[in-house]
Structure formats: structure tokens, C-alpha cells
């Protein structure tokens, strides 16, 4: 049982203001050029922080796995000179929803699998994380993916209550952040209000998957050749928005950039998308997922079968970002339920016939 404290409304801005004074803080804020659009970005004023926000378009994984990052710089001298490039400064990532916390732990595990990748954990080690609870919209389905109540990967977790936030202190780093703050012991009344918030959250979830993760994996394994993949693919544009907005996608590309002077440059790592036609293309023009339905199917299998079988949980947090972002209105919950229901319907007919 973690320590539970209460941070009253009037102390919240002071608390985050002090964090900002101590070092860089990234959190949900309005995009300067686009009022009303909330995204994760660096904060210079605690008043800009929006802790009560709906799911962002781009998930906070970008704090640790940027869309584009430099791996090393090179100079075309003789001999060639290669210099590793890494950000080293500590920072604090605040306002992370439970689904996105769950995603951080998934990427911890995926990148740590031997042979382990080192950029992700090094960036994770630079940051303290503060989570915050939220209310769902019609795309959210985190109760189906076991991430509705995630406290993974965070040092403090805030739940809105009447007099401010109930603060769960989950690590020594979290305790340290609160050392000069105006927090007090939580009462049973505070705890009951936080519990009521969580009940309301789960109750407000309108979207859900019609199968458990294990049932879904088994159904997908039996539905590799369903016509449904082609039906979905007939609508898909292969734009990759689903991958770009996904908090658990971790594929990447590696490319070089020359400086204008052509005397040096850098090797870059950048987000990639398995939905793009060239993702599985090899030299000589062979493409192992040339057809759009193969790529669409691959995404479902990776989330709900391959990584589920490897790590014991689906690599989907129920955040609904892919459905919100889809340019063809392909909804992950609707499609998944269609697969589940067709498979069950066929099984019923098979039993009867």
C-alpha cells in the first residue's frame, strides 16, 4: 500500500512551479499556435499545465523515444571520427494517464529483451514521472486492456478529489519531489472520493473489447485467413497514422544525414510504420508484406498475438489514439469485435452444423 497524501488545489501550481524551477518539465499544455489543442511539451510556467485533459494525439513516449533522434555524429576526416550524441539532463514528465504509464512499462520490457537496446532505458533513467487519472471519451477502452488502473513506471500518481489531488507516493524519487510541498495525510473521505472517481471512470467507458486478451489471441490465431482483413484494407490508406500515434509502437528506421558542407553529418533513428508499403521491402524488390491487407493484419497480430505471447499482455493500452487518428475511420474496437463476433458465429454454426 503506497503512502497516500493530499495536495490541495492552492498548492498544485506552486508544486509544479518548483519542479520547473529545478529542471526541465514536460507535460500536457495548450499548443501555443493552436488554442484548445493539448499536447506534451516543455513547460516554462506551471500555469500552462493542463492536468485535466483528453488523450493527446502523440503519446508521451516521445519524451524517451523522440520521433527523430541523433545516434552519433560523424566527421569525414582520416580516420573517420564518430561521436556519440546523447541528452544527459534529468527532467520530469508530468500528467501521464494510466494507459500511457502502462505503455511506458511495455516499452521498458520490449527494449530490455535480450539483446537489450540502451537508448530507451538511458532516457527513462533521466526522468521522474508523475501520472494523473482521467475520464474516458468514446474511443477509450482501457478497461479491456488492463491499463485503466496502471501505476507502472511512475513516481507519483494524482487522482482528482474535491479538495485537490490524492497523491500516491510510489517511489523514493516521488517522496523526494514532495519534500517541501504543502501536502497532508489523506483521510478516509479523500480515499473514498478517489475510489469514486475510479468507479465513475470505469463506468463511463462505453467502448470495450468482447473478449479477454487470451481469448482474443486465440481467435486471431484462428482467423489468419479471414476475408475481414481485406475488407478493412479496402478502406485503409496505409498512411501510418495508427503507428505514429500508438503509445506501444516501437519500430524504427535508421538513416544518415549529411551536413550541407558534406564534411560530416549524423546517423538518425526515427519512428517507422509497418503500414507503409516499403517497410518489409528488401533489395531486389521483394516485399514480404506487399499487399495492404497483409500490413493491416500484421498490426493486429503484433499487438494482440506476437507481443502478447512474448510478454504476457497485449501491446495495446486501450487509449484509442489509432481510432481517433485514422483517416479512413477504422476503429480498433469495432474491427476487433467484428473479428471476435464472426469467429464466434462461425464456431456456433460449426457446432450446430
Amino acid at each position, binding site marked *: 500500500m503506497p503512502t497516500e497524501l493530499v495536495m490541495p488545489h492552492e498548492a498544485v501550481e506552486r508544486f509544479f512551479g518548483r519542479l520547473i524551477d529545478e529542471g526541465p518539465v514536460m507535460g500536457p499544455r495548450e499548443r501555443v499556435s493552436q488554442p484548445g489543442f493539448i499536447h506534451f511539451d516543455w513547460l516554462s510556467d506551471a500555469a500552462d499545465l493542463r492536468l485535466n485533459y483528453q488523450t493527446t494525439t502523440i503519446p508521451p513516449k516521445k519524451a524517451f523515444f523522440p520521433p527523430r533522434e541523433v545516434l552519433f555524429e560523424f566527421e569525414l576526416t582520416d580516420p573517420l571520427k564518430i561521436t556519440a550524441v546523447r541528452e544527459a539532463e534529468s527532467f520530469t514528465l508530468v500528467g501521464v494517464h494510466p494507459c500511457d504509464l502502462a505503455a511506458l512499462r511495455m516499452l521498458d520490457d520490449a527494449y530490455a529483451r535480450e539483446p537489450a537496446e540502451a537508448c530507451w532505458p538511458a532516457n527513462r533513467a533521466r526522468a521522474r514521472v508523475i501520472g494523473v487519472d482521467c475520464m474516458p471519451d468514446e474511443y477509450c477502452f482501457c478497461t479491456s486492456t488492463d491499463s485503466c488502473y496502471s501505476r507502472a513506471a511512475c513516481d507519483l500518481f494524482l487522482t482528482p478529489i474535491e479538495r485537490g489531488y490524492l497523491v500516491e507516493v510510489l517511489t523514493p524519487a516521488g517522496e523526494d519531489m514532495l519534500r517541501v510541498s504543502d501536502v497532508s495525510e489523506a483521510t478516509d473521505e479523500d480515499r473514498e472520493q478517489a475510489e469514486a472517481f475510479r468507479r465513475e471512470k470505469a463506468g463511463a467507458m462505453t467502448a470495450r473489447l468482447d473478449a479477454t486478451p487470451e481469448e482474443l489471441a486465440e481467435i486471431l490465431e484462428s482467423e489468419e485467413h479471414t476475408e475481414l482483413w481485406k475488407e478493412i484494407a479496402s478502406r485503409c490508406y496505409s498512411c501510418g497514422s495508427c503507428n505514429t500515434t500508438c503509445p506501444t509502437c516501437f519500430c524504427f528506421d535508421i538513416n544518415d544525414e549529411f551536413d550541407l558542407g558534406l564534411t560530416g553529418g549524423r546517423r538518425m533513428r526515427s519512428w517507422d510504420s509497418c503500414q507503409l508499403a516499403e517497410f518489409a521491402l528488401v533489395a531486389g524488390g521483394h516485399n514480404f508484406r506487399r499487399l495492404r491487407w497483409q500490413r493491416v493484419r500484421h498490426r493486429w*497480430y503484433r499487438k494482440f498475438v506476437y507481443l502478447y505471447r512474448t510478454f504476457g499482455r497485449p501491446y495495446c493500452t486501450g487509449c484509442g489514439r489509432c481510432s481517433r487518428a485514422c483517416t479512413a475511420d477504422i476503429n480498433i474496437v469495432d474491427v476487433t469485435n467484428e473479428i471476435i463476433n464472426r469467429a464466434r458465429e462461425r464456431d456456433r454454426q460449426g457446432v450446430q452444423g
Partner: protein
Amino acid sequence: MIDHDAVPPAEDITRFYQPELARVIGKWQMTEMMVLLRLQPASGERLDHAPGQFLQISLPGYGEAPISFCSSPTQTDSFELCVQSVGNLSEALHDLRPGDFVGVRGPYGHGFPVEDMRGRDVLIVAGGIGIAPLRSLINYMADRRRDFGRVIIVYGARNPSERLFVEDVEAWDARDDFETWFTVDEPDETWTGMTGVVTVPLREVEIDPARTTAAVVGPPVMYRYVAMELLNKQMAEDDILFSLERRFKCGMGKCGHCQLNDLYVCQDGPVFRYTQLIGRTEAIEVWAPDEQKG
């Protein structure tokens, strides 16, 4: 739990992505499209690869690409890579001169299980540039000849001018203890050997299926037909080894580019037993002409 005090130095973090330098010590134009590079690690340390493994070769500014070793690990002072001119990087690699440096990292992946193949007959089936990784295995067996039973080499090329490693091929042909079968699809006036795709000579090869391991590398379309031929010869599916090509970006099972159903070719392969590929629908390119636009 994350240790907030333990951020390692930058060069340790990017170590995996960072190439070591290797010097070009020899270069041969094998065909119009193919160049053979002989390289030596600048550190003087051996890469210690197994036949069938690959490495990532890079030229700063041009990028990085995976290429299979084509020299035997018994050749200890240097290693060789066969580079096909297909893009910016490979064209730049074609322009290298002895003394130039390239970046290398690796070796990666599971190569041919040479320890399991000890004492067995080995049937090599090479199509086109598939001969490159198999040359590593063949020359390894040549240097460890007593460790293996019969060595049978079936090599098919599109036409005589696209045959690779002609000197090696002649040396294999001249050995009494190698059985060689060479064919081309499109013969010219110089060609006196067999004509037809690689399954044509393969059909005539007689083997003891229980004693034989087959090592097969070629274009994706070849695998299905070679597998049928080998199963016709009563070979066990577990004794048929296929090496698959994918566009590895990282080599550590993370970037996702080489995923074959639930497998990562860079980690679980690139050499697979046929048993591992049965039922995995992405093992070979799907040929579906009616679904081009799917």
C-alpha cells in the same frame, strides 16, 4: 524500478548502433552488378563470424545495410562481403578503393548449425546471389573436410555472365571430394553445362535422405520448389535449412523490419530449419497477382 542516478556515458548508450572501422584491403569486380570486398577490422580483432551470419556495413552519409559474410571463418586475417549495386549505399561501396574505411557492426543472427552438421552429408542449393553466404559454408567445409560426409553443390545462375566466384567454383569442381552440379537458365554460346533452373540438376542428385542436411539460399521464389524437390527425396523437414533475406535495420530484434510472423529474422534466423517456417505465412513472398492492388 528505474534507477534515476545511473545514466551511462553517451558512447555506451549508442554502442549498439555505432560501427567499428574496417579497412578495404581488396576489391574485385565479379560481374557488372557485383563487387567483392575484402575487409580487415581496424582494431586488428577478429569478427569471429559463423557461416550464414550477417553484419551491418555502413558508409557515413550513405547509411547502413545488412550483408551476409561470404568468406569462411577459417580465413582469419580478413573477411569478405559480396555487394550488389542496388542503391545509394551499395553504389558508394562499389566506388571504394583499397585503403578506404567502412563502418561495420556485427556479426548478427544464427548462421548454419555447423556443429549439428558434423559427420553428415551436406547438400548445398544456391540460386543467384544465394551463392554468396553459401560460399562461406562451402569454403568452411573445404577447410574442415574430414568433419563432413559427402559435399554436394548445386548452383544455378540466370546466365553464364552472372555466375559469381568463378575461381572458387572451378576449385570446387576440381576437387575429388566435392560433387558439383552447375546450371544456368539462359545459356550462351560459351556455356557447355546444364540448362534450366536449379531444380533441374537437383532432381538428378541422389542422396541418402537420413544422412543429409540441405543448405538452401536463393531468391524467395526458389524456396517452395526446392523444398518440394527435397521432400520428394524423403528428406526430413528438420534437415532442410533456408537462409532468408530481410531488411534488417538494427540487428537486435527491435526495429521490426525483419519480422516474419512472430519471429525476428535477425535474431531467430537468418538461417532457419524448414520446420520453423511451416505454417508461418510470411516466410516467403506471397504471390497473388489478382490482389496487386489489395
